[in-house]
């Protein structure tokens, strides 16, 4: 494995140039000496060439979309158009300061205004804030809005219901706004158990959080009924929009009973995942909730765009220092403009076809618990057959996929499927790629029978062999000593 950058240090080597300081002022005259650091900072001293070689070498140890299939369920690892990367690097985007005058940023404001509008349109909500920077922050913001709604109405409520298939960020966000989580089971079809829901609902119910299609990849067909149950106690319906890719141009969630929704621009709208971020997690709301959205919003008056603080008093406040992840939002804007109505729908259609095709082709070889439902953009398979018969676990299957040049699916989630493998192909993958993946999965199923040891030892030809996670916790080493 590569050395760390610290091990490449050579005293006085330089990786930068700076102009000579052309003012005469001396640092000593700036502030008293006791404000000065005692020990010099210790960072590597390396050349620009050293730096390029180091990070390029690191980069070659990654799997990434443009290397191969990345069916990481729930994450929508679709292709990120290159034109976006080119355009956002323009200085008139990257060089803007958040506190410059609105009239010096009209182009930026127009982009954001249009994006607010497009996201509202395609989802059937009244308006959208672009401020939250990730899905989880979107959830937090959405729940805050829910709370503001109830507070405004003097509703005494403190519970959020969510299905046991919910993503971990859902309960965590509930906790962060100070609500309590009530978890309900899913039914045999992988959907919300309506009876369980009815039982759980009462006057304490502030709202319901649902992912739709849910984390099993199944569209909640009783959504109307669910909404009614929740709305009947004046609860609000929150949509975790991580799976919005399945609905583009097909269903407007705002018309199906949801009151609040977050979007994951880094999933549905093709902005790069960046090795973990930055993402963007805007929130759409129905009309009467607009007043609670974070300030500022972009607005337009007499042909001028501006940051609008009108709802300052009713707003939940701010969740970001400025306006959210602007450069990510610009990419989503460009992507939506390129898709247009035609492309939008085609994205969802092809994502759904790809997922159903995979589900169909794999279901004889792997347990697919909900194979009787057509899935939407993803589905959940399980390694249970293999585990019961051969002792090979889903983890082993995942690791073996790495050997074959694929990223693994999301594994062990959702929690309600044992040995879960959540598989999301996305619309940007071709049938050929899916066929190759299917073949790899069938080969692995055969290997599980014929040479389970291979699977348990996998991966065999990745940059490193199986990583010892336990040791990483036990002998915590989170910083290089040199």
């Amino acid at each position, binding site marked *: 494995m590569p050395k*760390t950058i610290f091990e490449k240090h050579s005293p006085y080597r330089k990786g930068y140039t700076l102009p000579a300081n052309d003012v005469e002022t001396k640092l000593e005259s700036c502030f008293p000496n*006791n404000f000065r650091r005692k020990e010099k*900072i210790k960072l590597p001293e390396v050349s620009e060439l050293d730096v390029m070689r180091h990070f390029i070498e*690191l980069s070659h140890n990654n799997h990434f979309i443009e290397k191969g299939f990345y069916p990481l369920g729930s994450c929508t690892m679709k292709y990120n158009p290159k034109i976006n990367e080119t355009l956002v690097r323009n200085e008139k985007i990257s060089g803007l300061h958040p506190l410059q005058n609105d009239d010096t940023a009209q182009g930026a404001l127009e982009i954001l205004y249009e994006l607010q509008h497009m996201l509202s349109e395609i989802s059937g909500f009244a308006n959208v804030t672009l401020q939250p920077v990730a899905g989880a922050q979107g959830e937090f913001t959405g729940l805050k809005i829910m709370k503001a709604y109830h507070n405004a109405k003097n509703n005494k409520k403190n519970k959020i219901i969510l299905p046991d298939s919910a993503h971990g960020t859902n309960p965590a966000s509930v906790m962060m706004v100070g609500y309590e989580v009530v978890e309900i089971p899913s039914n045999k079809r992988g959907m919300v158990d309506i009876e369980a829901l009815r039982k759980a609902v009462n006057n304490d119910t502030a709202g319901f959080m649902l992912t739709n299609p849910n984390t099993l990849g199944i569209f909640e067909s009783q959504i109307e009924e669910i909404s009614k149950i929740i709305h009947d106690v004046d609860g609000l319906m929150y949509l975790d929009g991580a799976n919005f890719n399945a609905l583009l141009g097909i269903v*407007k969630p705002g018309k199906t009973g949801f009151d609040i929704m977050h979007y994951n621009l880094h999933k549905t709208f093709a902005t790069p995942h960046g090795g973990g971020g930055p993402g963007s997690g805007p929130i759409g709301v129905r009309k009467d909730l607009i007043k609670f959205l974070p300030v500022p919003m972009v607005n337009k008056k007499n042909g001028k765009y501006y940051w609008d603080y009108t709802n300052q008093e009713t707003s939940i406040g701010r969740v970001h220092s400025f306006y959210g*992840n602007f450069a990510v939002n610009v990419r989503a804007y460009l992507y939506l403009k390129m898709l247009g109505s035609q492309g939008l729908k085609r994205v969802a259609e092809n994502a759904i076809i790809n997922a159903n095709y995979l589900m*169909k082709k794999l279901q004889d070889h792997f347990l697919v618990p909900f194979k009787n439902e057509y899935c939407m953009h993803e589905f959940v398979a399980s390694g249970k057959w293999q585990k019961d018969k051969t002792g090979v676990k889903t983890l082993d299957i995942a690791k073996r996929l*790495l050997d074959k040049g694929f990223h693994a699916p999301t594994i062990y989630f959702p929690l309600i499927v044992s040995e879960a493998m959540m598989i999301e192909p996305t619309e940007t993958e071709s049938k050929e790629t899916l066929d190759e993946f299917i073949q790899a999965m069938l080969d692995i199923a055969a290997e599980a029978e014929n040479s389970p040891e291979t699977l348990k030892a996998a991966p065999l030809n990745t940059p490193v062999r199986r990583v*010892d996670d336990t040791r990483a916790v036990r002998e915590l080493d989170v910083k*290089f000593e040199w």
Partner: protein
Amino acid sequence: MPFISNTDKERQEMLTAIGVEKFSDLLKNIPQKFIVNKNCCLENQKSELEISHKFYKLIAKNISSARVNSFLGGGIYDHFIPAAVDHIIQRPEFHTAYTPYQAEVSQGTLQYIYEFQSMICELTGMEISNAGMYDGASATAEAILMAARKSKRDKAVIAASLNPLYKKVIQVYTEGMDIELVEVDIENDLQNLKKVVDNQTACVVVQSPNFFGNLEDMFAIEDITHSEKKTLFITVVDPISLAILNSPTEYNADIVVGEGQALGNPTNYGGPLFGFLATRSKLVRSMPGRIVGATVDANGNRCYSLTLQAREQHIRRAKATSNICSNDALCTLAATVYMSLMGPKGLNEVATQSATKAHYLATKIAELPNYNLASNKPFFKEFTLKTPIPAKEIINLLTKKDILAGISLEQFGMDKNLLLIAVTEKKSKAELDNFVNALKEVPNA
């Protein structure tokens, strides 16, 4: 659509393989009435060429602060970024990967995060850093939640000189957790602080350099803070300043947070940014966010993986230390590459030039009639000016001369004659003098 791979023919083959006739058969779980019938809901699709044209037309209406004489700061700074940084972060190997869940094919991401953590520890003097937060504001808010969790107390004392935008975010993050926020003015009298720190105080939060650019007396503040044994001292710092200013470990900070943008990331109209959060080993299990640790693989070779995940939402759900999942990883990569390129000497030079140029400018402006520094406290690279006419008017006037004069503090509910001015190493003396001259020519001043 060049982004959708399958052709109509392949689509049909696949539908047949699935066992349906047409696409809509797959939607049978969706109540018919919810299905949008006509083409929804955008304009016509645009080709790459059309969107580029449109885009260039739009952005022509923007003024890039990077190309004019800008003195905007307030938490986001236009420091020099070596070109090599972008050449690294634009590699698809980095930017089209996601969170390194599968360590064996994510060593590139994991290793740079490990290096990032190490560098943040080096700057702050802390023992552990996480892999980054959304921004400085949420990092500060999460630090308070962390302190409350750890100390099992519910009062947080906040210096009034903290960035007002951070305060807003903190408020939103803490109010649901029943944390009482107490704001104290420490700029003028530390006695104020003494009065509010008590055995219910989870933490004291102080920014230095503070929002107005001034340096706080962190040693004295620490004394007061730690007079209550379990109270944690949370400091909000400018990472660039740490090249020359006291390392937070010198004044016994417990949690150090800040905005990381200045380390190799463009201003980007305020986002993406990234927050950093570093602390003492003993607090590690209360930390929010991802952490990467070194370990070995099956062959005993050194490698890296996500560690201490039991703190996180995907394991602990409602009991997690935070709901954060995706963070702003690519920005921390930029920071790691930046710090590698600049090294200790480069960072020192950046800090020194920013400080000396800011002081040169402050002195020159203060020599003008009718302009005064708002405070005589020591400052780093940013200072607040008392202007003879509303700051907003000065800003408007100077914009016409391609000078972005700074930030009017009126928008934060302060005196309308206060102008916050930031200076980085990028400014030349000529640009500083140009600013001074323009101020001189402001009518009625």
